[in-house]
């Protein structure tokens, strides 16, 4: 019994089912274009599943089908059993189907059309869900989208039976209705009509089966089960093929096995036919790409004319790329390498036979029998294809595989070595396009060459000059002697700075929009990396990218962030602490450096990220060798913040009258946290070092601070470590002096410059310069006595608490008035200006004139404030008084 049912699993002819499947897959591709990537992946996985576990799959299907045929036999017992056992979605559907059929049958008995109609709708739905009603699918697309497609489905027998019976019954009913028109009520009539239409539609698809059912009802139900015997055969052959394919992967001696196990012979003449076959099967389910690649490798060996070679190479490279069609995983390394080699061969072939060119715009050559020949009056034989896309794809694939490899393994280093080869391919591609562009008739778009140059630039901009030089040397020794580039001549390329400059200049003059912006950022990055601070900063400012960077895509924004950080680091190396802090503030102050620089995914604590977003973010990650060291970055940022914040903290001190200016919130928070700790051990990480140094600096112990800072290991990663350390100790000395003066000024009447100079080991002139600066900026209420070279602190400058509070109060009062005025002005602006008779003159002017006074100088703001206070406040209010 069970074996019979088991056999029933493969009952319908496998041909028809596979046909349907094809139809489905194709349709699916059409339907959900946007999900294509996914579905492809799915089908890919599924395909491999099938390969791996053919047997188990079979049994599963068998179970499913067992149920189906079980539906015929009305034995409830077995039904129960099955239900208990099988829980797959498909089986559930089948159960539902059965129930619906029952419903229809009941309806037939009672002549209740509403019941039948709902039953039919249900059946149709279920079938649709099973992916069987090919034609209706499109209509019910929406309903259908979420439903998983059931594998290996086919029209269930009961369905055929019921629809044909239903049709008969309906015809009868219609005939009856004609005779006695008044018998049916409205709902019934409507339901009947609906059923009629549905049946018409669906029955068309299954006409043959219905016919055969009609011809002999019993036999149809039985016979199809008998037909099982020949069915497994075709399946077998496929299986052999599938088994063979993975073996091939391992060894090179690939036996030429065609479809159905036949041995095929390849001749140069048949190349195009094979290629066409392969091209046609591309993207379809159940095509074994590895096998096809094997075939094409074979074809490549026998290809003897350039045209054949070009065609085969183009196909094989794209076939290799198809291997890694999923978004996250890269193509296998060996395939990448072969693809790279094949691309090089392709470029060489194209170089050797200049009458063949590969362009995007070429028409497909339809004739498989004879290759195209050079037409009179034409210079080239065009082959359809796009070298630039291949190069880009190759680059992307390397990038992807680098993303996936753990950067601390030797594997990563090995993989990274391929970059040299890739770089060669890119430049060769560039040469090829330059060659093409020499001929004006060809009309090669500027875009392709821009893209390829951009790729080249992107492989260069983040590297030190020496590395670029090595790359270039390898490159030029690899290409033929006579190869020369118009854009980047051999002679220019030896100097990295020059090369980058040339590439960027080319892009500036020949491209626009995003490529241009990227080129600019790359050049700025390069300059900053090579310590050309002013030039890079000026370029960055002149590019005006700060204003429109939010309009660019995420990749470019990341590049922008990287460039910004690099400029900041460059400023630090130059000893420009203020500029460095300012530049780094935006990125480092956010606490999301990792995310902003695409060097790691942040843990999102508060807002949930969808898997989709997360995947996108993962894709954006930069490979490790392009990373900017985050710890170094943090270290630089914190050190800069310390040098600026500690004197500021000392200056503001406890006085409440000065608005507390905060330079770096992040730093302040860390400092506060550090101060709250009860026990502080010796510093362990960079942050601890900086924090303890800050503490020491605040206490005036600059030597201790210097030691802490110098102990940070990560400075070794900077070039010229010693210089940077010297620079830092100099800065610390100066800032220490300032901090000391701010902190201890209230406790001194006079202070000898000599003492200070001894205390901070600074030159006396340097000390007086620092002091002079502080006095002249009115940071310090003191004056110098030239005769005795003493610093004399003025008395009565320190405010008592009452005095400072009074100052604060007066400040607040005037702020309040100002706010009121502004509110009133805003309110009256919208209405039909009741008191704007004088024609609100100079409202903007006077307003904006007042503003800088408020935010600006700490003490120098008084005069301006006063001026603003006594004047008419312009606009509405001024007019109001006058009127």
């Amino acid at each position, binding site marked *: 019994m069970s074996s019979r049912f088991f056999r029933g699993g493969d009952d319908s002819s496998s041909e028809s089912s596979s046909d349907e499947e094809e139809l489905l897959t194709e349709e699916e591709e059409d339907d959900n274009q946007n999900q294509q990537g996914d579905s492809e992946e799915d089908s890919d996985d599924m395909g491999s599943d099938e390969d791996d576990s053919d047997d188990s799959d079979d049994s599963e299907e068998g179970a499913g089908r067992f149920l189906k045929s079980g539906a015929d036999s009305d034995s409830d017992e077995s039904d129960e059993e099955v239900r208990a056992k099988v829980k797959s979605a498909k089986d559930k559907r089948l159960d539902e189907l059965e129930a619906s059929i029952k419903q229809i049958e009941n309806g037939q008995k009672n002549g209740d059309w509403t019941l039948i109609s709902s039953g039919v709708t249900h059946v149709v739905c279920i079938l649709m869900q099973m992916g069987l009603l090919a034609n209706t699918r499109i209509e019910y697309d929406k309903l259908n989208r979420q439903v998983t497609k059931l594998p290996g489905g086919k029209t269930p027998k009961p369905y055929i039976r019921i629809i044909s019976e239903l049709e008969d019954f309906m015809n009868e009913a219609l005939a009856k209705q004609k005779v006695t028109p008044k018998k049916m009520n409205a709902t019934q009539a409507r339901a009947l009509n609906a059923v009629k239409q549905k049946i018409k539609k669906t029955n068309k698809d299954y006409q043959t089966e219905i016919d055969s059912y009609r011809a002999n009802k019993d036999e149809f139900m039985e016979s199809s089960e008998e037909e099982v015997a020949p069915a497994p055969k075709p399946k077998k052959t496929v299986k052999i093929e599938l088994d063979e394919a993975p073996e091939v992967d391992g060894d090179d001696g690939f036996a030429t096995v065609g479809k159905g196990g036949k041995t095929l012979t390849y001749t140069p003449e048949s190349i195009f036919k094979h290629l066409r076959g392969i091209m046609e099967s591309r993207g379809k389910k159940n095509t074994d790409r590895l096998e096809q690649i094997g075939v094409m490798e074979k074809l490549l060996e026998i290809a003897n004319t350039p045209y054949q070679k070009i065609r085969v190479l183009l196909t094989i490279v794209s076939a290799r790329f198809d291997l890694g069609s999923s978004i996250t995983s890269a193509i296998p390394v060996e395939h990448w390498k072969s693809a790279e080699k094949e691309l090089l061969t392709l470029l060489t072939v194209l170089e050797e036979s200049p009458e063949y060119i590969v362009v995007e715009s070429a028409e497909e050559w339809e004739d498989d029998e004879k290759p195209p020949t050079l037409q009179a009056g034409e210079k080239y034989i065009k082959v359809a294809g796009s070298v630039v896309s291949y190069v880009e794809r190759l680059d992307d694939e390397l990038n992807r595989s680098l993303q996936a490899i753990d950067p601390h393994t030797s594997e990563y280093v090995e993989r990274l070595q391929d970059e040299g080869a890739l770089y060669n391919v890119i430049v060769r591609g560039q040469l090829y396009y330059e060659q093409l562009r020499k001929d004006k008739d060809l009309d090669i778009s500027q875009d392709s060459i821009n893209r390829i140059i951009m790729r080249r630039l992107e492989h260069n901009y983040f590297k030190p000059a020496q590395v670029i030089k090595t790359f270039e040397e390898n490159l030029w020794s690899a290409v033929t002697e006579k190869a020369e580039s118009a854009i980047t001549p051999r002679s220019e390329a030896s100097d990295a700075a020059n090369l980058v400059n040339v590439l960027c200049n080319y892009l500036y003059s020949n491209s626009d929009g995003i490529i241009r912006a990227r080129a600019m950022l790359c050049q700025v990055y390069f300059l900053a990396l090579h310590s050309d601070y002013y030039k890079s900063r000026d370029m960055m400012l002149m590019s005006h990218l700060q204003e429109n960077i939010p309009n660019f895509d995420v990749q470019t924004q990341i590049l922008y962030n990287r460039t910004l950080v690099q400029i900041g680091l460059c400023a630090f190396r130059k000893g420009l602490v203020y500029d460095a802090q300012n530049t780094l503030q935006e990125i480092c102050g956010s606490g999301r450096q990792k995310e902003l620089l695409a060097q790691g995914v942040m843990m999102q604590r508060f807002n949930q990220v969808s898997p989709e977003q997360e995947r996108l973010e993962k894709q954006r990650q930069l490979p490790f060798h392009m990373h900017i060291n985050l710890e170094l970055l943090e270290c630089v940022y914190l050190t800069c913040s310390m040098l600026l914040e500690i004197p500021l903290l000392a200056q503001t001190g406890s006085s409440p009258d000065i608005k507390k200016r905060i330079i770096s919130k992040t730093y302040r928070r860390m400092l506060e946290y550090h101060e709250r700790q009860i026990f502080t051990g010796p510093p362990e990480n960079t942050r601890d070092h900086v924090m303890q140094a800050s503490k020491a600096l605040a206490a005036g112990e600059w030597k201790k601070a210097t030691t802490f800072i110098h102990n940070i290991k990560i400075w070794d990663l900077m070039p010229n470590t010693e210089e940077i350390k010297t620079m830092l100790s100099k800065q610390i000395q100066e800032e220490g002096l300032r901090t000391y003066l701010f902190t201890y000024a209230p406790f001194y009447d006079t202070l000898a410059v000599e003492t200070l100079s001894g205390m901070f080991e600074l030159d006396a002139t340097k000390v007086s310069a620092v002091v002079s600066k502080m006095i*002249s900026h009115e940071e310090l*209420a003191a004056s*110098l006595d030239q005769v*005795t070279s003493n610093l004399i602190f003025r*008395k009565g400058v320190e405010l008592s608490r009452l005095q400072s509070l009074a100052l604060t109060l007066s400040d607040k009062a005037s702020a309040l008035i100002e706010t009121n005025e502004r509110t009133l002005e805003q309110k009256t602006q919208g209405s039909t200006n009741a008191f704007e008779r004088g024609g609100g003159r100079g409202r903007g002017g006077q307003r904006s004139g007042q503003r800088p006074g408020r935010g600006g100088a700490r003490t120098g703001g008084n005069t301006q404030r006063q001026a603003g206070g006594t004047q008419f406040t312009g606009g*509405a209010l001024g007019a*109001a008084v006058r009127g």
Partner: protein
Amino acid sequence: MEDVLKAVSADGSSIMPQLAPNLSRHLLFPLIQFEGDQAEEKGEEEKAKKILSGKIKLLEDTNMTDYVATLYCEFHGTEEPPQEYTKKRQEVLADLEKHEQATEKIADLLTQDEVVNGLRSDKVANLEFLKKEHGVTMEMVNALFDFGQFQFRCGQYGSAADMLYQFRVLSTDNDKVSAATWGKLGSEILSGNWESAIDELKNVREGIDSKLFNNPRAQLDHRTMLIHWSLFPLFNFEGAREPILEMFFSAPYINTIQTSCPWILRYLIAAVITGRSRARNSSTQQKQLKDVVRYVRQEAYEYQDPITQFVNALYIAHDFNAAREALGKAEQVCRSDFFLASSADAFVEAARHLICESYCKIFSRMNIRDLSAKLGLNPDDGERWIVNLIRETRLDAKIDSQDGTVVMNHPPNNVYQQVIEKTKGGFFRTQVLNAAVSKS
């Protein structure tokens, strides 16, 4: 051309090579002339000779054949200029005649009162009017332009200016009109009509802002030129100072200076510092000085000369010794600079004031001897100078001649005064507010 520039900048202090590309041939000539005179004064025969030959080369392309011929004679020590000059002279004369003929009619028309009275502000209507009434064609108008250009090349700046003015009134060709405006500006500068030069300056400036707004590069180039050209009125005409400084400090122009010609900072500093004593409004002067200091700091990596070094030492490093040294050098530079030569003394005087001012701000007691040294004066002069300073500016300072010191008295900023000042306007403003609210 390059020779002369090389010769001039041999000692490295002159920035003529940077200025030259932005000046017209004719505008450059006075600069070279100045250099030549200087060289002669100093008795540097070699240099003077080189400059002379450079002058000839510079003017060879112009129509000032007579002058070039004389220069040639001077240079080679001959009596008779070679044939080619006479030939060229003939050609120029012939050209002149041709141009005169071409413009005869229209020039004649424009001298008639009734015609001039018939003109309105609408250019198109004017042209129509002239065409109808007097048969003036477009070619004739353009001939005016050509003739103006020719005159300019001949060195007849006055008549060139007239021609170009007339052309501008009639022409509707925007490009040519702006070219004519530039030409007129050049003519006015060279003929020393500073007031009309300033008007033209305004015209050019407006033209740059309005016509080239979608071509940043051309805007930058034109502005650079304009900045250079306006140096002539800036240092030669008192009334030009304010409008031109205002222009220099406006955002587009200061950006231009910072981007394409940082050497202008030298003149900007000089103008601001020299203008100190003359400026009516000391607060704007203070602001300008502050701005200049900022720009000097920003551009320090790109451009430095003794004058910027002076500012740097005084206001950024607060190193008075360095400031003194820089001032000494700056004086030299000023004396040998075409634009600054006339105002060198005023500059040094004003610079001393500045040194003294910031010195007084920082020190409470200082040695007269030291201070005099810092000001670059001997002690006696220094004392007199300081006394004058105290009297003029009403500084709160006393000289203690027993110790030979000056004692400054820095009054502390009274906190009560501050509070009063801050709250002074409050009542009034509240009243205004109240009035406004009750009205609405």
